């Protein structure tokens, strides 16, 4: 699924995205958590093609994405990062989306559309 479709399915606001090419980039999986240690422990494969879904709108979510080579963070429950966090994301080329849905709804919508079904 390309990022443009993710944005459409989730009716997401694009908070930050520098390179327009990322909209055509293919994503195959997602990891949803507010615990960054879990993300650091469990995102093991396809990192460049994995979305991080979180309600944690702080710098550590962006740092976690940076360490894991993730290129997109989807903030749920309408969370929006502040300017300092956006600057941190900018330095690492991480796109930031915000959606009104809960984490559960966000995961459900993306899964229903085919994301994360690596073993199907």
């Amino acid at each position, binding site marked *: 699924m390309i990022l443009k479709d993710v944005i459409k399915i989730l009716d997401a606001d694009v908070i930050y995205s520098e390179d327009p090419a990322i909209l055509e980039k293919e994503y195959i999986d997602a990891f949803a958590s507010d615990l*960054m*240690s879990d993300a*650091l*422990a469990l995102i093991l494969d396809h990192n460049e093609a994995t979305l991080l879904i979180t309600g944690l709108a702080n710098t550590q979510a962006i740092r*976690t994405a*940076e*360490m894991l*080579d993730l290129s997109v963070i989807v903030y749920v429950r309408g969370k929006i990062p502040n300017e300092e966090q956006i600057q941190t994301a900018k330095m690492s080329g991480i796109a930031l989306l915000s959606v009104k849905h809960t984490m559960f709804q966000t995961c459900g919508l993306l899964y229903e559309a085919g994301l994360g079904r690596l073993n199907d």
Partner: protein
Amino acid sequence: MIKHYDVLKDDYENAGKVSSDIKRTLKQLGLDTKTLRNVAIAAYEAEINMIIHSLGGDITFELSDEGEVILCFDDIGPGIPNLDLALQPGWSTASAKARELGFGAGMGLVNMKRVANDFHIESSPQGTHLKMRFSS
């Protein structure tokens, strides 16, 4: 190449900056993606631990001529009372503030041990000393 960084107790505002610098430096030096990610994960977990749990300390990062990455984390206390428990997945003594940051799941040392090729830790009330090695 050797770099040193100072880390202050409870410096949540700057948490992750050292790990970010280590990752950028190694990326510029052309380290392979997998090793780079493992170093970054371990450095970040250890840096966060130092900020959350210690009284402060320093981080040393070394890239040997043979391409081995060595990370050392040395703090000035108060030490880990029970290392065996701290190395168990899910064991945590993190504060509410640490949990607010998205940490304190009790996975830090477990994660570091998983990604490092060599992991050595010793701790006393005078300080905790952690050394990890990574090779491609």
